[in-house]
């Protein structure tokens, strides 16, 4: 390998290291396709909050998508979740009438970020809710904070 090629390679590696982790953290997941494909469709509400917009919630990124009356989206999300489950820890899973109703996945760390995927489908499958979040806090703390009952 030529010296200039090695230098270019080294430079690219350093640039990749310089990228903020949260820029690429979600993009390596299959569920990012859900946000990309369905986020701007009719009957869909997608919300993204990050940084100071989350106040003192100790989250660095929160993304949610609520899809109404789109059975194909449900199938697509479940396929994405199947792939994202690889290497992830299943915190909670509920299967209702043979269909995935709820799942909480703790993804492998990305840098110092803890990442979680939460998915819920109503029993009729009419409404699908998918949430992706990143935090520097422990997963237990995040879940205790987010999922505590009202």
């Amino acid at each position, binding site marked *: 390998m030529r010296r200039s090629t090695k230098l270019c390679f080294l430079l690219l590696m350093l640039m990749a290291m310089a*990228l903020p982790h949260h820029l690429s953290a979600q993009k390596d997941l299959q569920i990012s396709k859900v946000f990309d494909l369905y*986020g*701007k469709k009719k009957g869909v509400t997608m*919300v993204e*909050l*990050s*940084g100071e917009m989350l106040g003192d919630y100790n989250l660095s990124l929160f993304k949610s998508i609520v899809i109404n009356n789109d059975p194909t989206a449900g199938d697509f999300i479940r396929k994405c979740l199947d792939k994202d489950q690889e290497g992830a820890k299943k915190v909670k899973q509920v299967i209702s009438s043979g269909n995935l109703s709820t799942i909480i996945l703790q993804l492998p760390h990305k840098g110092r970020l803890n990442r979680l995927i939460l998915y819920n489908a109503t029993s009729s499958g009419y*409404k699908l809710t998918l949430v992706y*979040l990143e935090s520097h806090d422990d997963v237990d703390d995040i879940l205790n904070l987010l999922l505590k009952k009202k």
Partner: protein
Amino acid sequence: MQLFSNHKIISTKEADALLEKYYEGFTSAEEERQLYLVLLQPDLPERYQADRAMMGYFAGEKQAGKPKKNRTIIPMIRWASVAAALIGGIFLVRSLIEEKPQCYAYVDGVKVTDVATVKAEAMQSISEIASDPDEVAQAAKQFKAEEIVKDQLSVFSGN
């Protein structure tokens, strides 16, 4: 025959003695310099040519050592410059692409960037999730980004 060394005249006998001392490794730095100057003179007798060649070789070797030092210093400076430029570049790129806080929503394909509107749209989605109308009203009163997140996630709490 007389030989010159540093404005001093020395005899061939003295020169021979210096040479002998040199080859035995007992010469001081000053004596070596004196011997070097003797052997440098242009009308040097033939029998000292071999000694001059040897002294010249060693002198040349010493001189060659100096640029070597420069050669190690210059790449160090060059690499230090490259490293400094790289580090500077990394910080520059990082500061340029650092993601700014996001607050937006897409509702039916329409992008909303106004913070209040985004929060209102998020609130609307919460109201669609929530089954109890009172719960929605209560959330609307305490409308904050944290509440939006919490309420959206309430669906996972098992309630």
